[in-house]
Each structure stands twice: as structure tokens, then as C-alpha cells.
């Protein structure tokens, strides 16, 4: 199912190049990031999960190594899995490979960026500036849209600012 959606996204990517893109799409060389979003947080909630799609249009694999934002003390790359009904979250220190010509989705139920020790709560409609560091492509700056805590996916076609 994962590879299916990756293929679908790769196809969509081509179509999307010609049309105005609703969700923010940032790129550095062959690496582009889209559908970056996070959830609003409660006053004393110290963490948040960030999700996005990373596409590698190049001919060489790349690797997301780290992420950072001025709005959190630390940002980590995490995996989440369900093992016999038990949720397990783990840090992925080695980063995430973005295979050549493929997209990798960070989404609920799977991989995510974890913002740790937030400087202030994420408010609905805010944008969280994040710098992603890739092994080959270098730094890619992405703004994560702060969506409702009830969101389970990027709200495409929903412009920010309200």
C-alpha cells in the first residue's frame, strides 16, 4: 500500500507542476517538500508531530538527516508503529532515505517529525518554519501549517490565514 501511494504521488507530482499548488511546495534541487502540516497544541503540551511529503525527483537517493525550528528546543525524526494493538514510537537517528524518483510521506500512523519542548503553543493558522537538512540537497526550508488538533491529513485546497 505504501509503494502504491508513493507511485500515485509521483504521478500526481508531474500533474501538479503545471497547476497552481495549494499547499506550500518548497524545493532545493531535486528535493521538494509539500503538504507540511502540524497540529495545534494545548497550553502546556510540550510536543507536536509534524507531517509532510518529500519528493526526490533526482536520479540519486537522498537522505533527510535532521530538522530544526526556532520554535522548539529540539526536533527529531520518529517512526510510529502499531504492534498487536500497542503503539510504539521510536527515534530514527540515521534519518530517512528518500529514494531517487520517489516520494516519502510522513503522515499519522507512520513517520513523523517530532517537535520537542515547544517555545510556545502552536496556534491554529500559524506557520512553523522548519529547516530540513538533506545529505545531498542540503537545507530545505519548509513552513508547516498549524491545523486543527482533530486533523488527520493535510488540508489541501484550504488556504491558510483564517
Amino acid at each position, binding site marked *: 500500500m505504501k509503494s502504491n501511494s508513493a507511485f500515485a504521488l509521483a504521478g500526481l507530482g508531474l500533474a501538479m507542476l503545471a497547476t497552481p499548488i495549494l499547499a506550500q511546495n518548497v524545493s532545493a534541487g531535486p528535493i521538494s517538500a509539500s503538504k507540511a502540516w502540524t*497540529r*495545534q497544541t*494545548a*497550553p*502546556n*503540551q*510540550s*510536543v*507536536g*508531530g509534524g507531517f509532510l511529503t518529500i519528493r526526490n525527483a533526482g536520479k540519486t537517493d537522498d537522505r533527510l538527516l535532521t530538522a530544526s525550528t526556532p520554535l522548539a528546543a529540539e526536533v*527529531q525524526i*520518529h517512526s*510510529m508503529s*502499531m504492534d498487536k*494493538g*500497542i*503503539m*510504539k*514510537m*521510536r*527515534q530514527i*537517528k540515521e534519518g530517512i532515505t528518500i529514494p531517487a524518483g520517489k516520494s516519502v510521506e510522513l503522515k*499519522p*500512523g507512520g513517520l*513523523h517529525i*517530532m517537535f*520537542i519542548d515547544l517555545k510556545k503553543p502552536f496556534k491554529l493558522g500559524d506557520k512553523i518554519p522548519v529547516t530540513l537538512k538533506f545529505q545531498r540537497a542540503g537545507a530545505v526550508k519548509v513552513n508547516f501549517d498549524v491545523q486543527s*488538533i*482533530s*486533523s*488527520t491529513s493535510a488540508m489541501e485546497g484550504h488556504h491558510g490565514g483564517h
Partner: protein
Amino acid sequence: MADTDQDIASNIAAVRKLLWLVAGVAALLGAILFLGLEKNGVEKQAPATAALPFGGTFELTRSDGSVLTDKSLAGRPYAIFFGFTRCPDVCPTTLARLALLRKKLGADGDKFDIVFVSVDPERDRPQDIGAYAEMFGTPIIAATGTDAQLAQIRKGFGVYMKKVPLDPAQPDGDYTIDHTAGIFLMDAKGRLSSIIDHHEAEETALDKLRMLVG
């Protein structure tokens, strides 16, 4: 007072008699209690596999500082979920899902309570989980407790939980909590009605909730 050997011997005999009497009474009381519990168990029609009633008795502190127990929840069905606020994925997804399911049930949606139990009292203070639960836009009873209280309720519901360091190289550093992600549906009499699995289809989840409040 100079007790003779004989006096001591008769004293010991008296104490022995008393002990036997106490033991006899205790055994009788035990038997009565046991039979009483047994009868209750049958009346409650507990799941055949569980010797103790599912859920059991528990006591926690609500986000407003008041006490939450199995007894205070009795009388209304409830959906209970265990998590923590530093969980960026499954916990908000589950609570948002429950809020959405409640909305989809229409009038039936108001016929059950949603209970969120934080298993991370070290970092989740009662008032914090209240503010967290409020964000989902539907009434949610948020509670947590001491380690002992949480151990008790987890035992009752068979909820797995394990603190795991995020970085294995720093065992005393930041941690995450592996935990059971299912939603337990308890009826108005505190009996397990069913469990909504994390990956369950929405229609199935709705059916289970209709069965719960029906």
C-alpha cells in the same frame, strides 16, 4: 508475680483455644464472602475468560481535581482510552476520532462519556490534560493518577504500558511510552461491551457505539 510452669502451660492452652476460634470465624467469613462474590460474578455475566470483572475498581484524579472512579462513571456507558499528551500521533488521532464518531451518532452521541486517561503522570498534570482534552471540541473526561492508581486501572483493563528512552544511548533521557491504543467501550453497568481497534473501519466503530448506547 511469680508464674509457675503450670500457670504458663494453662495460659498457652487458653491462647491456643482462642486462636483456633479466631481461625474458625475467619474461615467462615471468608467462605461467606467468597460465595457472595461468586454470586455477583454470575449475575454480572463477566466474560468467561476473566475471573475478575473487566475494568475492575479504580480511582483517578480528574482534570478539575475531583475524583473519578468506576462507581462515579456507572450509570452511563463510556468509551475509555489510555494515552499521554507527549504522544504526537495515536492519542490526538484517537480522541479526534471519538469526537467525530460522537458527532456522527447525532442524538446517540450524547448517550456515552469519553474518558481519556494519561498514563504519564510524571509529565501530565491533571490541569494540563484538561486543557488538552478541551481542544477536541467535545466533552471529554480527562484523568490521571498516581503510579499505583494507574497500575490498578491498567490491570483492570489489561492495558500494556512501557516507558522507553527515545535514545537508547541515553537511558535516563527523554522517554516515550509504548501503550495499548484500543478504545474500550463499557456499558452503563461497567461491563465491557466491545473494543474499537486503532485500525477499525468507521462503520464498524459506529455500529459498536450504537450497540453500546442502544
